[in-house]
């Protein structure tokens, strides 16, 4: 019993110690609770909120693009799409089978949807079909009770109402490239699935304004990222992008684009000569911008890129051509500035010699004695060879620059080229050689080193017509209904005496309106709509001495790529110039025969439509109301 007592005593003592140990351990638990739930509670509360709440972006509606009369050129369509959420669908295969009664689903479509469903987490919606028609939409909605996990979502899709008619001006939107994402400062909007940015044309130029501002919503998400609910009071609605009003007259633009379609590859620019509004700008062939919004296939892309007619290129701003005879007005104005008398006569025997080199006039046998006016009318090369030699390349170049050559005009779409106006400094810098006098005659007829874009030619025509340093532009007002401002600040006058302009304008008038002028066939007979013009035929190949002797081959005998470019510049009405136009037909042949009729049609149509008429603001206000 002693033993038993001793054992009991040991037990009691040791059990008490054990109990004490337990109390100690329980105290550490309470201590840790205090640490976590009182001392560090704020920190963990923040972490809990971070877990639970997530801000999601809301895509803003992209601004519309309108023509000068408020006609919509680019707008946003609702893009209704069918989505399935795999975890809510019992049997995905069967549901797809059911859906195929309402929407076309190929076997490949189904396979790729099933594959998607496997790869992604089961609560992520998968798009089954996009761009539903109203009928499809309705039939799916009606059958919704039998289609668990199927939902119809709405997004936005850019729609170009004019298709190919102004693809080079408007451009297109597409998913941001890797470069867009990493190039600029971080913009979360770009990461948004389905978000598209302007990739060319005014869509790119005015992308920021068109985009608008993103909104945001705060949602509660669970551990796997599924949205549980939205906190309504934290929602910030997105701000839609601004509508963009262009100077374009879409009716005229359609006319120009369709008129150019008669040629393989051509471009034309119609400007308001008084303020630089671009009324139409055509480049053929064109492409359909909608294929970029729906996603261009590799095949389509390769076809576009390998097409020798370069449909993606905007030839009006990106094509560089020798201006040929359309450059002669620059030589004339430079000569006048140098004090050369417009009545000075030059005898044209059909050839002009500098040293050992012979320069031929386009007319075999020559024009005889011509003054500056008739030199324009007949486009006499010898007169301008001689005048260029008298004037000097540097003076010609300086005059040409005043008219917008040799530099970007500053038009508000990306991708403009600057052409080239050579002078002695340029020659020295580029070739390390002085300018040789033998190079000047070619420059006098717009050949040799000189290149210009059709837009630059139109700017020249406009500046010749109005005498003002207009800058071409597409943008009129950011918001429909706002005051019609561009006319308010009139472009400054060029620093050229009016009498010099008069000489050149008279020369250009004779080109079309006088019997024997190179563009007489292209004249506009309607009273008050007569134009002043200049033709140009730019040689693409080198014509050898032997060919000159044996007879220059006709364009129709040459392969397309070697034929001359046909050019035409004009402004109208000749009395009070309002509109300016340039037409360039690539490898079209003679300027008067090929470009002339096109220019005639466009200039006549322009004046009949008279897009620059005054009641513009009123019209815009009306579209705004409707």
């Amino acid at each position, binding site marked *: 019993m002693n*033993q*038993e007592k*001793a*054992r*009991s005593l*040991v*037990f*009691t003592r*040791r*059990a008490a110690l*054990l*109990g004490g140990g*337990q109390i100690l*351990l*329980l105290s*550490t*638990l*309470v201590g*840790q*609770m*205090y640490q*976590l*739930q*009182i001392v*560090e*509670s704020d*920190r*963990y*509360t923040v*972490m*809990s*909120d971070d*877990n*639970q709440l997530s801000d999601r972006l809301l895509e803003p509606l992209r601004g519309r693009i309108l023509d000068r009369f408020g006609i919509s050129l680019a707008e946003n369509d609702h893009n209704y799409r069918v989505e399935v959420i795999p975890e809510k669908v019992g049997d995905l295969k069967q549901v797809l089978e059911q859906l195929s009664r309402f929407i076309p689903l190929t076997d490949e479509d189904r396979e790729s949807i099933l594959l998607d469903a496997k790869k992604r987490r089961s609560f992520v919606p998968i798009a089954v079909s996009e761009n539903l028609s109203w009928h499809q939409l309705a039939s799916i909605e009606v059958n919704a009770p039998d289609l668990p996990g199927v939902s119809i979502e709405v997004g936005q899709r850019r729609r170009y109402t004019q298709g190919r008619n102004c693809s080079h001006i408007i451009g297109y939107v597409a998913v941001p490239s890797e470069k867009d994402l990493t190039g600029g400062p971080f913009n979360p909007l770009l990461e948004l699935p389905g978000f598209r940015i302007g990739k060319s044309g005014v869509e790119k130029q005015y992308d920021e304004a068109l985009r608008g501002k993103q909104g945001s919503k705060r949602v*509660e*998400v*669970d*551990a*796997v990222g599924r949205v*549980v609910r939205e906190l309504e009071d934290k929602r910030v609605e997105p701000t839609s992008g601004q509508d963009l009003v262009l100077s374009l007259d879409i009716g005229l633009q359609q006319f120009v684009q369709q008129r150019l379609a008669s040629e393989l590859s051509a471009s034309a620019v119609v400007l308001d000569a008084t303020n630089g509004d671009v009324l139409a700008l055509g480049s053929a062939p064109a492409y359909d911008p909608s294929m970029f919004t729906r996603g261009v296939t590799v095949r389509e892309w390769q076809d576009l890129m390998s097409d020798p007619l370069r449909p993606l290129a905007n030839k009006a701003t990106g094509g560089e051509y020798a201006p040929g005879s359309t450059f002669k007005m620059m030589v004339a104005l430079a000569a006048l500035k140098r004090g050369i008398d417009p009545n000075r006569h030059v005898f044209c025997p059909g050839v002009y010699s500098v040293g050992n080199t012979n320069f031929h006039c386009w007319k075999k046998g020559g024009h005889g004695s011509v003054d500056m006016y008739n030199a324009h009318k007949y486009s006499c090369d010898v007169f301008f060879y001689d005048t260029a030699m008298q004037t000097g390349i540097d003076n010609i170049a300086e005059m040409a620059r005043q008219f917008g050559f040799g530099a970007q005009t500053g038009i508000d779409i990306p991708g403009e080229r600057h052409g080239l106006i050579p002078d002695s400094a340029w020659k020295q810098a580029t070739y390390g050689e002085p300018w040789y006098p033998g190079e000047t005659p070619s420059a006098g007829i717009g050949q040799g080193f000189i290149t210009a874009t059709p837009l630059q030619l139109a700017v020249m025509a406009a500046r010749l017509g109005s005498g003002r340093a207009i800058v071409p532009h597409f943008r009129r007002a950011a918001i429909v209904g706002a005051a019609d401002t561009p006319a308010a600040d009139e472009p400054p006058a060029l620093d050229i005496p009016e009498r010099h302009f008069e000489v050149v304008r008279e020369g250009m008038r004779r080109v079309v309106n006088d019997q024997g002028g190179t563009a007489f066939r292209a004249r506009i007979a309607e009273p008050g709509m007569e134009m002043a013009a200049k033709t140009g035929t730019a040689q693409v190949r080198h014509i050898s001495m032997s060919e000159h002797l044996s007879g220059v081959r006709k364009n129709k005998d040459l392969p397309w790529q070697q034929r001359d470019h046909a050019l035409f510049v004009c402004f109208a009405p000749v009395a009070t110039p309002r509109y300016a136009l340039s037409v360039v037909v690539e490898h079209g042949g003679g300027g008067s025969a090929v470009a002339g009729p096109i220019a005639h049609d466009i200039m006549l149509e322009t004046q009949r439509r008279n897009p620059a008429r005054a009641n513009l603001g009123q019209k815009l206000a009306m579209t705004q109301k409707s």
Partner: protein
Amino acid sequence: MRWPEPLTTFRRAELSIAEKLRQITWSMLFFIVLIGVFGFAMLYSAAHSVDPWAMRQGIRFLFGLVILVAVSLVDIRVYLRYAYAIYGLAFMLLVFVDVAGEIGMGAQRWIDLKVIQLQPSEVMKIALVLALARYFHRLSADTIGNPLTLIVPIVMVFAPVGLVLMQPDLGTAVMLVLVGAAMFWVAGVRLWKFVVVALAGAGAVPLAWTFLHDYQKNRILTFLHPESDPLGTGYHITQSKIAMGSGGLGGKGFMKGSQAYLNYLPERQTDFIFAMLSEELGMIGGVLLLLLYTVLFVYGYAIAFNSRNHFGRLLAIGITINLFCYVFINMAMVMGLLPVVGVPLPLISYGGTAMLTVLFGFGLLMCVYVHRDLKIGQRGLGDDS
């Protein structure tokens, strides 16, 4: 054999069922039910519905209460008599799951009995207490000083520990060692012997390490360096701490725990249920639950001190320490004080075997109380004194 005329002190051992029922400490049962209700409420909150957890657990709890009472009414000498048999059975079951797991090419911890999925490791926690209580009951204070007498109980502890580690179930292994150690201690084993065993154990750590599965190694390493694995095991501890910390003093409100409801909290219905409780009910709720458990510990000690037989004393302490280990390891793990070893919170966590084992344990505790005045000789099974 006729038993001698019972003395007053022995009388309770020969009580009728009705008299035994009157001996049950209903107040302790009340606290057990209180914790059970706590658990039911938390499982309801975890699913925002009685399905799939709360209702099933509630039914099990009621079933467990019946077992508790039934266990407490059985004569304590029956447990003494069959202690080794129960231990042997539990041991066989452990071997069985290990072998079955080996054949099934994967870790397996339970036997499917259709009605219930039996976890032999849970059964072993009680069986070990019974076996050790019986062994030390028969050792006198003198014999216990002989180190050789300790060989058998040491094997009793470490044999199932080895089997459990093979499953692998680190939590149960730790609990078996701790419960065993506590019983050695109260039985009167000298301190220096613990030191020897501990040193031997420490020497065996590198060896044991090689036997651990990779995921167990990772758990221990992650516990030591939680920042090294923010999305793996460390993620669980971090999310658990966020849940508790964001609960603050008063909690986010019943059924309003965002961490739990939005699935950031792993295993919110089982091992991490205390984190959810702390998130929704705050430190106040956590401490309240801890107090309820403490009340049960106090009952355990009181019963141990009041028992007149050594078997009962050892049994009561073993059961109490077992319960304490559950509570402490689980809470410490959820709070980031211990590695994640997979120990449920008794009476709260969802799970059948653990709950029934715990209630069975309470039944034994109650049984010790009911038979507190029964004197049982060292040698005998109560019939030879």
